[in-house]
């Protein structure tokens, strides 16, 4: 606990570090949301391929999700409601990772739909990447929870 508190302490280095980290996360989500918005056919197909949602809900879900990601990225970059944005991003990332895990367990050979056209496979490498992102989001969330910026 003590070392975690140290990492999250409010000091100059941390201020800069977490500002950069949240900018990077914001940029990532703006990019991935944008990639989904510009190719709704491909993204909705990707969502459908996971075979988690009932078919009739897939497109609505895909539309909302792509815009939600994009807006989360934008607002994170603009430092608006940071904590809430990070929290939502964390939830989304956990959801995506869970979806990929179930896809792997069911033997689905599909692409993750993460970045539209440039998506890669929904495989264990993707899970690893997602875990890194989840960790980054989580500590950033903790930092701003502890040290709210006004």
């Amino acid at each position, binding site marked *: 606990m003590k070392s975690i508190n140290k990492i999250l302490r409010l000091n100059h280095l941390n201020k800069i570090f977490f500002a950069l980290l949240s900018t990077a996360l914001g940029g990532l989500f703006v990019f991935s949301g944008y990639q989904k918005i510009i190719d*709704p056919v491909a993204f909705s197909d990707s969502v459908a391929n996971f075979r988690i949602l009932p*078919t009739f809900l897939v497109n*609505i879900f895909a*539309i909302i999700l792509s*815009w939600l990601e994009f807006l989360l990225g934008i607002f994170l970059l603009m430092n608006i409601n940071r904590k*809430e944005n990070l929290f*939502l991003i964390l939830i989304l990332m956990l959801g995506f990772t869970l979806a990929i895990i179930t896809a792997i367990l069911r033997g689905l050979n599909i692409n993750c739909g993460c970045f539209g056209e440039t998506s890669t496979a929904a495989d264990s490498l993707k899970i690893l990447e997602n875990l890194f992102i989840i960790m980054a989001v989580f500590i950033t969330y903790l930092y701003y929870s502890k040290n709210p910026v006004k």
Partner: protein
Amino acid sequence: MKFKELDLMYIVKLIFLSAFLGLIINVFSQKTIPFIRSENPLRNISIEEIILTDSEIDSKLFTINLSTAKELFESKRAIFIDARDSWDYSDGKIPGAINIPEYKFDYEMVELLNKNAIYAVYCGGTDCDISKRLAEKLQKAGFKNVLVFSGGWEEWVSSGYEIDK
């Protein structure tokens, strides 16, 4: 570490905003998609696409028309699967086709088959959908290249192609 209160109204508003923007843009954009998605009407795939891009068949279900089925048959590139029950199968089948009745499909029936080979699944014809259902089950079971010959037995027979009795 304290877990501070989150502004839930903001979260709700954000989701509504996303839905609203998504709705508007989808209605007016060029690349519009239907709000209510219908069960995939399967896309047809041609023999050239199968040969050139056979990794693209992965995880997508495609239908093939009669001439593509014929080509696959003659070139022996695909293994035909008859999804009907064994009585129909023994009354007449596409030569070389194996019988995997959809209604009693079990993973054990297919575990020894080559998952990377190309399979063309058929049933009676356009009135039956067990070929598509069996194809989906095969995909779930890990078969990478499954095609649905939607014209089925009826179309094959009525074009006078060879059959096995």
